[in-house]
């Protein structure tokens, strides 16, 4: 097939991002030509502030090198802007007279700084703050002159002012209003910002209307409406940007404020696409990078003829790139009628946090001085999370609601050799190196290339901070809807609902119904789908062993050397001499290299070869054991303390109740592992308050605790309710588990699930509504009929023998 021709007008971040995404999706579909107005390769415009401030060199912020264009066979024509688009001939013409044909055209002309039409605005020394050339002018001015005036106290103006001041100029920022960065900050936080910038030597003239720029050969001063004047050798105009639509307009492409596009990023001419700051989508123009990258992705997808995905607009957040000043804002932070405001203010520490809340959902956030939780608030905002259950701790940050505190806001001060990711042993230096050398922008990319934050995820905040400091803020604004995996655009919830609604019973049926992008899914989605089918139609769905992780196929835990470990179930942690003897016999007979008592009060036998497993199980099942499911995304153990039969403090029979709970729940498959515990008194020796379901016995009954976790993030349980009888404990437990089984996302433990859906939602179903509780509990018991079949016994009896036997060739 002859390749189609794609022309990109504008060698900037948005357009080139679209090209990169396109190359990832369909590398061979187009011959690509790129026209750029600036005489450079694509660079990270956002980091120009850091170049100006002397924190980075221009070479550090290049995104695509000449070699990259060459390697990808892209014709790059830089320093030669397109001056004409002929839509009839499908041709563009450049300033140097080059003519190129296109099948598809992508317009990404970006924006221009808005220059207020004042007298004198054309004088030498009056510039905007947009590109490399502007920065070069500032460098020259800083060498030869003393005073600068920056008109505009917004994000860009303040970054320019900070940079010029660091270059040794006396800088005055002129702002029309009395509130700096009024689009991002409320008055108190703007005051804090102004004070700290003044400390750094910037001067401000607020509520000042510029009247004229005065000068003869070059700018000499700026005069104001009140008659005053400030001397200036350099004037930087940073009052805003305007979409650069001149070329598009001259070609007759429909424009309003920007080039108007649909949700596929197509203009009114279907051969012509547009992305970036020049675009107007659903009435919005964007000037921040995250939305532009989202647009680029959608556009690339469409150019690749995949035709899925559409751009639905973005919510944006902002950070100021002035080193040493922490500032974050997102959403609608000026409270309207009916809104509530939560404020935390500590003037001595220079901390200010404000959240605007409507109907228990965060609408906006402003933070100054301590912005560590900015991304968390932003996530709650985007996802519209109901915050009522943790509202009282909300302002204190995510740490205060369960994170044991892996975060270190000082990551930027760490040495390069400091370990950031403890799971995979990745140091700060390696991460920064990978980000800059491999051109990484998102958390997922850093995870893929360095493995940092890809295992337990507790260092995610640190990695994000490193990303932000290396390439700038705001690339990783994930859409509020997360796809189940790369094989589909549907979310977990959508898949769960579809399976239920359409009564789907097999994985192939799901893949077909939901138009999966891959032939047979991947190692992420297949186990999830198998589980969702199991929950939706126990007894009817067809289980697919090949879609289960090896541990669940082999009913043991795979170890690093490929051997397995095996844990026999001991209900409630109770055992007797003959059971222990049987385990000892197995250990002798099979030369088990190591045995260990687990945290869940069981005995783990290590180092068993896969081929030995059925024989080991046979001996164990003959002795009366069933599988301990220590390998399962499912019910693991009930840990108990000794209870009132022996303990002088015990208030109830905690071991007995533990055994009953385990008899009820063993064998049950869940979204993730699930642990229970029963403590006989509030001393809580069984550690019930860090379990998925914990019972703390008290003299008058039983406290039921849920959503605890002792793992990566320690989370103490929430109190679900208190009940009086053992029968109630069992019913509430079954109902809680079933709620989790039906609603939890695969590989989501109860702790994040409880935080996601909210404790009140769970209480409503399990505690307040007796009918629903009974129904949930009945559904759980129904599914247990099919689940409580001991897999060890089955395999010992020869079921699925092929899984365990290997082929030997002489």
């Amino acid at each position, binding site marked *: 097939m002859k390749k189609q021709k794609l022309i990109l007008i504008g060698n900037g971040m948005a357009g080139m991002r679209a090209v990169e995404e396109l190359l990832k999706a369909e590398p061979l579909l187009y011959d690509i030509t790129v026209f750029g107005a600036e005489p450079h390769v694509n660079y990270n415009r956002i980091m120009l502030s850091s170049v100006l401030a002397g924190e980075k060199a221009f070479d550090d912020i290049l995104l695509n090198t000449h070699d990259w264009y060459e390697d990808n066979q892209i014709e790059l024509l830089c320093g030669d802007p397109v001056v004409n688009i002929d839509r009839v001939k499908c041709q563009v013409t450049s300033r140097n007279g080059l003519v190129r044909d296109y099948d598809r055209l992508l317009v990404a002309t970006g924006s221009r700084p808005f220059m207020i039409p004042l007298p004198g605005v054309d004088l030498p020394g009056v510039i905007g703050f947009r590109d490399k050339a502007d920065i070069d002018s500032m460098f020259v001015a800083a060498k030869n002159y003393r005073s600068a005036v920056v008109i505009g106290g917004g994000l860009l103006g303040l970054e320019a002012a900070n940079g010029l001041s660091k270059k040794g100029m006396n800088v005055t920022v002129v702002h029309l209003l009395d509130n700096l960065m009024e689009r991002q900050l409320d008055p108190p936080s703007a005051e804090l910002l102004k004070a700290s910038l003044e400390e750094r030597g910037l001067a401000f003239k607020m509520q000042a209307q510029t009247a004229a720029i005065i000068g003869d050969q070059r700018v000499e001063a700026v005069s104001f409406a009140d008659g005053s004047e400030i001397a200036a050798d350099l004037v930087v105009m940073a009052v805003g940007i305007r979409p650069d639509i001149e070329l598009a307009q001259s070609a007759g492409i429909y424009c309003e404020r920007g080039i108007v596009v649909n949700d596929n990023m197509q203009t009114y001419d279907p051969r012509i696409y547009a992305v970036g700051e020049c675009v107007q989508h659903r009435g919005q123009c964007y000037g921040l990078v995250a939305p532009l990258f989202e647009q680029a992705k959608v556009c690339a997808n469409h150019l690749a003829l995949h035709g899925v995905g559409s751009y639905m607009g973005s919510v944006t957040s902002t950070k100021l790139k002035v080193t040493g000043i922490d500032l974050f804002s997102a959403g609608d932070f000026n409270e309207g009628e009916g809104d509530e405001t939560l404020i935390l203010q500590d003037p001595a520490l220079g901390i200010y946090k404000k959240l605007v809340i409507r109907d228990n959902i965060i609408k906006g956030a402003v933070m100054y001085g301590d912005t560590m939780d900015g991304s968390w608030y932003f996530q709650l905002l985007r996802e519209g999370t109901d915050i009522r259950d943790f509202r009282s701790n909300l302002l204190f940050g995510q740490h205060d609601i369960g994170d044991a505190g892996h975060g270190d806001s000082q990551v930027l001060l760490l040495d390069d050799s400091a370990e950031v990711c403890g799971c995979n042993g990745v140091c700060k230096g390696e991460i920064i190196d990978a980000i800059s050398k491999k051109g990484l922008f998102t958390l997922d990319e850093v995870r893929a290339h360095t493995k940092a934050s890809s295992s337990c995820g507790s260092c995610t905040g640190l990695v994000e901070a490193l990303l932000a400091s290396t390439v700038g803020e705001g690339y990783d604004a994930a859409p509020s809807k997360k796809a189940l995996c790369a094989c589909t655009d549907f979310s977990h919830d959508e898949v769960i609902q579809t399976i239920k609604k359409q009564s789907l019973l097999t994985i192939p049926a799901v893949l077909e119904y939901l138009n999966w992008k891959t032939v*047979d899914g991947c190692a992420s989605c297949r186990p999830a789908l198998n589980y969702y089918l199991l929950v939706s139609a126990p007894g009817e769905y067809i289980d697919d062993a090949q879609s289960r*992780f090896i541990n669940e196929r082999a009913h043991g835990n795979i170890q690093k050397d490929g051997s397995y470990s095996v844990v026999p179930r001991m209900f409630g942690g109770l055992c007797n001499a003959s059971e222990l003897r049987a385990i000892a016999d197995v250990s002798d007979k099979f030369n088990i290299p190591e045995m260990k008592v687990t945290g869940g009060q069981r005995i783990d036998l290590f180092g068993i070869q896969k081929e030995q497993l059925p024989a080991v199980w046979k001996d164990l099942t003959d002795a009366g054991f069933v599988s301990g499911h220590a390998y399962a995304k499912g019910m693991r153990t009930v840990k108990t303390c000794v209870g009132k039969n022996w303990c002088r403090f015990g208030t109830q029979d905690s071991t007995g109740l533990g055994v009953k709970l385990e008899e009820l729940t063993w064998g049950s498959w869940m979204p993730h592992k699930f642990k229970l515990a029963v403590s006989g008194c509030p001393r809580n020796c069984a550690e019930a308050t860090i379990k998925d379901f914990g019972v703390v016995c008290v003299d008058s009954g039983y406290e039921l605790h849920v959503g605890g976790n002792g793992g990566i993030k320690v989370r103490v349980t929430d109190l679900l309710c208190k009940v009086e009888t053992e029968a109630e404990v069992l019913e509430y437990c079954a109902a809680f588990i079933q709620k989790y089984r039906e609603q939890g996302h695969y590989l989501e433990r109860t702790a994040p699930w409880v935080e996601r859906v909210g404790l009140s939602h769970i209480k409503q179903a399990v505690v307040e509504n007796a009918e629903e509780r009974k129904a949930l509990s009945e559904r759980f018991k129904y599914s247990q009929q099919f689940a409580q079949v001991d897999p060890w016994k089955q395999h010992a009896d020869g079921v699925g023998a092929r899984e365990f036997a290997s082929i030997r060739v002489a």
Partner: protein
Amino acid sequence: MNEWLAIARANDVPRKGARVVHIEQMKIALFRTGDDQYFALKDSCPHQQGPLSQGIVHGKTVTCPLHNWKVDLESGEAQAPDQGCSRGFPVKLEGDQIFIAIPISVASVEAVA
């Protein structure tokens, strides 16, 4: 010289699954894709020697059970950005008999190495 060794029948290997084949002292993972193509790789992930035969097979890829590296069944190459390669061996199907081409000398040498 390669020698075609008869190692298994077509249905000895589950679809979207694998069997371990011992040849001399060497372990080979014999894969079968969802559309009944057969591939053989040394049963050892290029990352930390995890048993690829125990992974989940999807498309022409297997995901290692130890750390989720994705290895291409045809080439043995780890999926980028991970880097590494597991040695592959030619496989052919005649009727329902699966053959693998492997120099016996390689099998014994690999076992030592």
